[in-house]
């Protein structure tokens, strides 16, 4: 059964690569090399190595929490956790290699133990949020936010509270904006059903501008208190949280445009996920940021063209 499962995984991988096409595949390969180089670079000195391991493990935990196949694996395969460990081990190869190369054996053991333990993390129960308290402030148009906040409510509240409560520390507020930015970028990965696009009764251009404007407003409501708290304690370093906020704002706009550039009703487009990942990597590998901004312009026109098929009757 385990052998059959890995065979299916291999087939899935080949199918995904075929769907991406040769150009995107090459782009992804270059990006992967970039990522490996960045991991090797960041694991070479003492303060960065801890952050790198932390972010890498947070990434794998996010995958574990968002997997849709856990129930299937649990019922079909006896030792399904072994499969998860192997998969996560494969994902962690660049980190493991980086830590080995740079002789951080303590961190290596910590990373390996984490990879073995992560498959034991179960689904986080969805917290019942009092509608009148939080969600009523979010317009119904922003259903991505409503659904996203329901799914990640605990994390968002926890990180935001830590950020607001500890602005005296130089790192917490920018880090809180970065983590919140990454969580929020996941709100836009699923393509909504067609009636939900048509319900806006707007042209392609107005639809996109409405989506982006609403996002800017909501992300600003979340980030501005954090930025203000930071500036109150470090007025001379005001540009740090502002830069983090602006980078994520541009990244989110890029992700929204990517989603609608490849939009098909009721689907999670692999191409949009891949380009979304490139955007998130841009936050950590600054060289990629201009590429993300250029792609955002390209995707604006592509999403207008794609949406025109559905919204051509609206003005």
């Amino acid at each position, binding site marked *: 059964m385990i052998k059959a499962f890995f065979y299916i995984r291999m087939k899935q991988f080949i199918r995904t690569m075929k769907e991406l096409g040769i150009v995107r595949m090459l782009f992804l390969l270059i990006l992967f090399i970039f990522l490996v180089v960045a991991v090797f670079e960041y694991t070479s000195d003492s303060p960065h190595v801890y952050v790198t391991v932390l972010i890498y493990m947070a990434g794998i935990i996010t995958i574990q929490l968002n997997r849709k196949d856990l129930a299937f694996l649990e019922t079909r395969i006896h030792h399904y956790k072994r499969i998860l460990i192997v998969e996560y081990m494969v994902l962690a190869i660049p980190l493991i290699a980086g830590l080995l190369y740079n002789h951080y054996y303590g961190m290596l053991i910590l990373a390996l133990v984490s990879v073995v333990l992560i498959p034991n993390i179960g689904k986080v129960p*969805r917290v019942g949020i009092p*509608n009148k308290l939080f969600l009523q402030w979010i317009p*119904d*148009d922003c*259903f*991505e936010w*409503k*659904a*996203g906040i*329901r*799914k990640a409510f605990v994390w968002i509240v926890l990180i935001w509270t830590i950020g607001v409560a500890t602005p005296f520390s130089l790192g917490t507020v920018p880090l809180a904006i970065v983590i919140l930015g990454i969580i929020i970028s996941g709100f836009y990965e*699923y393509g*909504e*059903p*067609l*009636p*939900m696009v*048509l*319900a*806006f*009764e707007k042209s392609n251009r107005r639809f996109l501008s409405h989506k982006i404007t609403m996002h800017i407003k909501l992300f600003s409501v979340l980030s501005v208190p954090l930025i203000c708290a930071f500036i109150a304690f470090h007025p001379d370093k005001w540009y740090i949280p502002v830069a983090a906020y602006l980078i994520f704002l541009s990244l989110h706009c890029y992700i929204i445009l990517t989603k609608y550039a490849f939009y098909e*009703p*009721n689907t999670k487009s692999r191409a949009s996920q891949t380009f979304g990942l490139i955007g998130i990597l841009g936050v950590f590998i600054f060289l990629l940021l201009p590429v993300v901004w250029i792609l955002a312009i390209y995707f604006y026109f592509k999403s207008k063209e794609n949406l025109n098929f*559905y919204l051509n*009757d*609206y003005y």
Partner: protein
Amino acid sequence: MITIKNLTVSYKSNKRVIDNLELLLHENHIHGIVGLNGAGKTTLLNTIYGLKKKDWGTITWNGQKYSKQVISFLPTENYFYSGITGREYLNLFKNPFFREDSWNDLFLLPLDKIIDEYSTGMKKKLALIGVLKQDKPLMILDEPFDRLDIETGK
């Protein structure tokens, strides 16, 4: 009245699904389309709505070209965005005169619950309320009673 003249629709594989169809759909009437599986019923509805391009032929409403703005459409399969409530879904459709709760007396849906918790039949009912709320002159319903219990179907 919807007038369909010489409508021909085919798929990429050159498989002609609708061939030279002539049809009149009268105003204030309910028309049902019956046929074998794969006969092209859904293709016809998708073409009338504008989601499928026609090879040739004309479709007019009262002798004129029409747009999606005058039609509400219920697809065969009803998908919903995960993580929102039934009420939040209905609120997307702007119609200040529509009383959701009055309609819901008929359907008995838990509108304040997350849609993911709905059964398949409940999702169909929610999609139907969404279509009714749009209150457009033309309604295209593809298998509207599929998966509904007998009482609701009536």
